């Protein structure tokens, strides 16, 4: 109970970003490096100009030292995101996006915006998608009851954002709902 209140209820966005930085991304290294063991596993060898898969944290690190180009993930381009956005605005359910797309797209656009063709367009698309999804999770509030809430394809960051008050609100409703007594359970 030594943690400050906000940290007790959920984990923070920067922590989620840290978790997401274990995801693999493809890079084109500009320096050579032997296969190297890290705590999370062995990566490499880096042989320019061959592509290589490394964790996001390593890619960011190399990128900031200008020692690699990051190849954008397949889902991080304007066409794909535009499709998802159209889906998001026309259909009722959440569109299928990688579970940690928010974290990864943010980190990549931060450090490697020069590796993307149209970073500004990407940013605004991501923002639109996020807002469309937010509107949907808001609707989830009205469907809230004491037993379950079904919001498929919600991503890590969104789950994290709504977790504290959804959990609390469901707890409150559980308290307020009167369970039928044992003898009456069978009645309609």
């Amino acid at each position: 109970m030594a943690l400050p209140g906000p940290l007790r209820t959920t984990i923070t966005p920067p922590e989620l970003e840290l978790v997401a930085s274990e995801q693999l991304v493809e890079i084109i290294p500009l320096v050579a490096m032997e296969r190297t063991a890290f705590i999370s596993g062995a990566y490499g060898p880096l042989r320019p100009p061959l592509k290589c898969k490394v964790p996001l944290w390593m890619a960011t690190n190399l990128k900031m030292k200008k020692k690699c180009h990051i190849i954008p993930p397949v889902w991080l381009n304007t066409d794909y995101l535009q499709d998802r956005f159209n889906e998001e605005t026309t259909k009722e359910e959440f569109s299928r996006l990688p579970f940690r797309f928010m974290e990864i797209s943010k980190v990549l656009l931060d450090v490697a915006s020069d590796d993307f063709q149209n970073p500004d367009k990407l940013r605004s698309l991501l923002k639109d998608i996020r807002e469309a999804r937010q509107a949907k999770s808001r609707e989830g509030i009205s469907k809230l009851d004491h037993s379950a809430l079904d919001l498929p394809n919600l991503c890590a960051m969104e789950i994290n954002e709504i977790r504290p008050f959804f959990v609390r609100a469901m707890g409150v409703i559980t308290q307020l709902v009167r369970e039928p007594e044992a003898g009456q359970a069978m009645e309609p």
Partner: protein
Amino acid sequence: MDDEYYSVEAILAENQKIQCQFKLEVKDMGHLEGGNEQHIKPLSKIQVPMWMAYILIYSDYADFNIPPAFSARVRNALNAEPRSVKLANLVGQGGVWYSFGKMIMKMLNDEPANEMSRLLVKTFRSRLSEVIDQAQHFASINAATSAAGGDGSIGFREGLDGTERELFALAQESTRMMKKWYETSENPRK
């Protein structure tokens, strides 16, 4: 909200007074009535706190009336528009309307209890989205302009029940954290 032994909210809710009608004479307890009578007479109506009412009612010393916070008038108002009722004003002392309602519900049986439960759940659910909306709104605007939001929303916030206040704070905090995270992304990390 939960009736745990250590829950401060439950203790506060137990402090709410409820009107009881005594069925028996209780000797030397007239001071509870606040008058000069020495004994409590049968059929006299006395406001007693919930924690005392439990034992009186279960031991069949007294009957209780539904407190005004859950009267037909309030029910009708809640049916008409749950968001326009100031729950905090109904109970006083930090406004623990839901907890109080839950206690009353537990003392009722069958249909009245179900009705109470329906009332509480319906009210809670229909107010919840407004609570969250306002919390998110307040997390996203600056402290300087926090007076904005229109008269209706100020009235709504003033009428929040203690439980709703907690939810408001939770939603506000998580929105604020998200916003902070997004904003740090604006300037590249170098």
